[in-house]
């Protein structure tokens, strides 16, 4: 029997933007077992959410994740709106879709850049991040901040987008799409990238469902599940078809994210085209009472909030399940059987967001 070795992968590793440790048991160069360890960036957000005013929590939950901050706020606000029976005005729902999809696009740009960086494709990494910079500029101009945009509020949104800025977004999207075309073409067709992603880290549809995978990991295995099809915000009126790929390997997950960038481009354009006039927010009256759940689709997958309120200004329970939390068990199932050299790319292929996971 070959000698088995245990190697710690992380918590600090060039491919990991955030700390997670995988204890890998190797049989020569082949991974036999992977045991994840988390707990390096726990911040106690759930507990903090029980100590703050329910309106102030919007700013707290946004800080769980810097990459999809708006979508966290959206999920929280939708839950509270359900508890308080608040009807959000149509214009606010469309604006929420615009900001959500811009967030999805910038998150996928960031990830595609990191993937290129993991292969040592520095220039490609720069192309994606330069394109992402245009999206950040859109946030700055429309929302007043680049990362944590703080535009979602209970009952609607806090800012309107002026017609000039809507035109500015449309003009920028043309440039973004052109650069994206070139860069995605390299990611999907380059020989080296294909050699290191095709057939690596395979997750079958059955495994993905059994292990509770979400988002591009699940859709990359051919399961068409996307929380946006439930029709929250204005997704119901805009209509959305989940992007799926059949293979279930790292390449399929990459392709799902690349195609979702185009889907988001399309959704933003259609949302701007159909943007109705009217109010952007209603003032919520009273305090939340009862228990509810809220689900939205983040760039990494389905985000789930449970909130319990007792009619006071503070929630008595806030439970947050983030997509990476759900995608860690599928990652552990993907790794056995792969080569040690493929572990970084397979780990990256679930788009791990550890600060989200640990909250």
């Amino acid at each position, binding site marked *: 029997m070959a000698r088995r070795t245990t190697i710690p992968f992380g918590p600090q590793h060039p491919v990991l933007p955030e700390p997670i440790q995988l204890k890998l048991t190797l049989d020569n160069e082949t991974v036999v077992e992977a045991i994840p360890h988390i707990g390096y960036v726990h911040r106690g957000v759930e507990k903090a959410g029980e100590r*703050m*005013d329910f*309106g*102030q929590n*919007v*700013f*707290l939950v946004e800080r769980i994740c810097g990459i999809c901050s708006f979508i966290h706020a959206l999920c929280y606000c939708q839950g509270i709106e359900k508890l308080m029976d608040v009807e959000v005005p149509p214009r606010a729902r469309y604006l929420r879709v615009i900001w959500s999809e811009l967030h999805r696009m910038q998150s996928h740009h960031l990830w595609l850049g990191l993937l290129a960086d993991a292969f040592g494709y520095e*220039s490609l990494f720069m*192309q994606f991040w*330069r394109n992402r*910079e245009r999206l950040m500029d859109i946030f*700055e*101009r429309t929302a*007043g*901040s680049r990362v*944590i945009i*703080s535009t979602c509020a209970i009952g609607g949104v*806090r*800012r309107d987008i002026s017609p000039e800025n809507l035109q500015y977004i449309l003009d920028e999207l043309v440039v973004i799409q052109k650069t994206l075309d*070139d860069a995605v*073409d*390299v990611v999907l067709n380059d020989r080296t990238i294909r050699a290191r992603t095709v057939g690596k880290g395979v997750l079958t549809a059955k495994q993905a469902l059994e292990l509770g995978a979400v988002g591009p990991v699940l859709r990359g295995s051919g399961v068409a599940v996307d929380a946006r099809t439930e029709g929250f915000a204005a997704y119901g009126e805009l209509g959305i078809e989940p992007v799926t790929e059949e293979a279930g390997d790292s390449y399929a997950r990459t392709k799902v994210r690349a195609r979702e960038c185009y889907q988001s481009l399309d959704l933003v354009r259609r949302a701007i085209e159909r943007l109705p006039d009217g109010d952007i927010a209603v003032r919520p009256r009273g305090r939340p009472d009862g228990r509810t759940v809220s689900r939205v689709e983040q760039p990494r997958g389905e985000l789930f909030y449970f909130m319990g309120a007792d009619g006071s200004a503070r929630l008595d329970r806030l439970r947050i399940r983030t997509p990476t939390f759900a995608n860690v068990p599928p990652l552990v199932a993907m790794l056995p059987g792969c080569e040690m050299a493929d572990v970084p790319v397979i780990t990256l292929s679930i788009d791990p967001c550890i600060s989200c996971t640990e909250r």
Partner: protein
Amino acid sequence: MMLSRVLSNLFSRPATRPFPKTSREPVEGYRGAVEFSQEECVFCGACALRCPANAIEVDRPAKTLKFDLFKCIHCACCAEACKRGCVQLRSAYHPPVYQKPEFEFSGAPVLAAEASPATE
């Protein structure tokens, strides 16, 4: 694609800006430096009540307002809460500093230039 990219990178200007030689025009509506106009303030405490980060402390009987810039998250809730428009977020950035002084003012008006932490 690669050759065109190499050529365009060779002959085009860098995508980045040579900061601080050329700085960027501030964007209208950016939530930047927080400014209090103390002449207008009636110390009602609405800003402190709404602040999610507890960065503002108002003592109504003593007529004092304290603002801790390190705690501030630039959400503009204070500006929304203030009925008299005493709090505003300018589109300029807070300049980088080693220490952010706690901004404090009381009922007796003092010169804004002396106390304001937000400088151009």
